[in-house]
């Protein structure tokens, strides 16, 4: 058989190994540091990866021989699995490193731990940590690529990217769209990464939640702040429903879950008053009955499961751009070495 499917055609250039041109960063620490063009490059690369792997189900060996370490200091199921699978789909070796079973529990500092891993010849560290800035600290002490998989409430760039990719798939160009981020903005790294990514791509962002979770100061970043979901609902093309992060709070930011759900949960009734083609995202894990009712979470407008697939695609793209660029420069350096 010589007939080629479009998918196989798309896959062919990927086998060559070097990622699309235009990426110049050693690390991915947050979306704030990227331009609109760089964000679009990651999204386009993600689409390429998704197609080449037939919806993220097959392997392409563009990162064969690379090694990626998952360095997770906070619990995570989906993000860690997603990064692991993404790396394996690209042919890289993956090492999962759990903080609780390592030398860290013997008192070693995490920088020493990371330097030891680096000495073993890895290409990238995917790090999740409860403290903002920890990936940045790591990046300033390591030569390998550092990918931020969530640093406390600060940034979760791949989550922001996968949210944006999911919106783009369903609604096209982000420019001019109105996206409501609802819920625990104060403690949400997803919110911050969405704000940077969306505004850079020309979307209008509305933050919505009680004043204890959505401070007025956010306006200075060029976003709208509202405490009334029903008032902003008819204007939104997209709603991203953020989980209440009880674990990051000393005192409850609202009187009861019941009252919160009454004011901010996305339910059938609110769905009826929204735009017909409103798109609903939730970064998960979702608390059914708190930020979203079960029927809405499972309705056709919900992209919750598309987000998971796109998460894989985005993480493949990021790993490829960061490790692929690295191995090709290393390869060319090695080649130069031989010539000289």
């Amino acid at each position, binding site marked *: 058989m010589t007939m080629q499917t479009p998918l196989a055609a798309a896959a062919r250039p990927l086998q060559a190994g070097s990622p699309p041109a235009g990426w110049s960063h050693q690390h991915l620490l947050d979306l704030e540091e990227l331009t609109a063009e760089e964000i679009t490059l990651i999204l386009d690369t993600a689409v390429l990866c998704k197609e080449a792997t037939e919806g993220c189900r097959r392997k392409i060996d563009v990162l064969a021989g690379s090694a990626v370490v998952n360095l997770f200091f906070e619990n995570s199921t989906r993000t860690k699995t997603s990064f692991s699978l993404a790396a394996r789909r690209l042919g890289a070796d993956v090492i999962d490193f759990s903080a609780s079973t390592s030398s860290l529990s013997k008192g070693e500092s*995490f920088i020493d731990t990371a330097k030891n891993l680096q000495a073993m010849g890895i290409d990238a560290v995917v790090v999740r940590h409860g*403290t903002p800035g920890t990936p940045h*600290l790591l990046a300033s002490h390591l030569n390998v690529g550092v990918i931020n998989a969530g640093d*406390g409430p600060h940034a979760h760039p791949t989550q922001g990217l996968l949210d944006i990719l999911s919106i783009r798939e369903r609604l096209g160009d982000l420019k001019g769209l109105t996206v409501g981020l609802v819920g625990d903005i104060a403690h949400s790294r997803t919110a911050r990464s969405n704000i940077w990514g969306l505004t850079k791509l020309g979307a209008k962002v509305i933050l919505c939640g009680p004043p204890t979770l959505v401070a007025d100061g956010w306006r200075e970043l060029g976003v709208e702040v509202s405490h009334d979901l029903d008032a902003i609902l008819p204007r939104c093309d997209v709603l991203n429903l953020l989980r209440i992060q009880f674990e990051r709070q*000393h005192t409850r930011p609202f009187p009861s879950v019941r009252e919160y759900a009454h004011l901010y949960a996305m339910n059938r009734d609110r769905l009826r008053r929204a735009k017909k083609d409103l798109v609903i995202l939730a970064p998960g894990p979702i608390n059914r009955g708190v930020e979203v009712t079960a029927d809405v979470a499972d309705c056709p407008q919900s992209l919750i499961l598309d987000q998971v697939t796109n998460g894989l695609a985005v993480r493949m793209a990021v790993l490829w751009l960061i490790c692929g660029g690295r191995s090709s420069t290393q390869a060319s350096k090695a080649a130069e070495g031989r010539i000289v």
Partner: protein
Amino acid sequence: MASMLIRGGRVVDPDQGIDRVDDLLIQDGQIVAIGQSGSQPLGKVDETLDASGLIVTPGLIDMHVHLREPGREEDETIESGTRAALAGGFTSVACIPNTEPPTDTQANVEFIRQKAARADTCNVFVVGCVSRDRAGKELAEIGQLVEAGAVAFSDDGSPVYDAELMRRAFEYCRMFDKAILAHEEVLELSRGGVMHEGQVSMALGLKGMPAAAEEVMIGRDIALAEVTGGRLHVMHVSTAHGVELIRQAKRRGVQVTAEACPHHFTLTDESLRGFDSNFKMSPPLRTAADVEGIINGLVDGTIDCIATDHAPHAPEKKLLELDRAPFGILGLETAVGLCVTRLIDAGHIDWLRFVDAISRLPAQILGVNRGTLRPGAVADVTLIDPSLQWQVDVSTFASKSINSPFDGWTLKGRAVATIVAGRVKYRLPR
């Protein structure tokens, strides 16, 4: 004993209202005279220092220094901390009692004084704990601590949380005419915080410490000082509104004084954008408006003093995630440079006011016989080169620690000689 003539420097002594080029004669560890006439026995002077082009001031006093010993000698010792003081131009420091164990007994005060005597560097004035074991439950034996030589009282590192205990402390200290040096913080508002709560903390997702956490406690302590007639000294004021509260209290005649740290009139919370723990201290770096408020407070005298809150931490402790890294930065060896660069050269204050803030008033608040060049006074003298440009290099610091956010900065103004009781204890290497 020896005599020394410091010749031709610009002598700045706010205690006598002097700011003129003149000679200073020291004999047997005491100031003998200022002026050509006083330096009569010129032929017999043992040592002459040429101070032309230099500022000659009463020895600088840093009333807020963490020497860490006993308990945390990996961060600093009494010897290394006082050497850092000398290198920064300070002839005296007041050491804060949050050591391990805290300075809450006569024996602990005695330990520090003996160690300081053995180090034979600068004067160390001991601040005792307000509460036993610094636990905030009951008063420490303040009378005994005074007998042992404590000059003031503080639970710094923590606020005195129980308002009634604070009230008792104010009342009890009146008997000895000692000030309470207060760390002002409402812990419920600041807990978990690593930086100022504001626009920057919001964007970085870092837990903030709101200005109100400091201001509410300043308000409480002003009210308690007012009702008891006690002496409140507000440590490390960092907010513009905090300055305003103190300004109003002073107008009402409350016995309140205050200090500000060089980092609080130099840096803002924007510095945290790089997530560097050398910018983490308590109270935190605030906003540009707060920096302005602090400077205005120093200009109009609402803030009496400049103190550094020198807080050394060993490098491995600072090289941690931002929430695990401890609060605090070095201050002793950069204070003069920051004051000259940020306050004097910038035109905010003159040399008289500077010396007032960093020598005369600290001495007065602590009740120690320093901070003056009057004949008969102990000859603690600092010589400052006001135009010397230098680059901060933590690897050359006398301190055991290197946690200064100013590493690599170019500053103007530096102490070139530090004289304690008539003996030159430090000279800037040429």
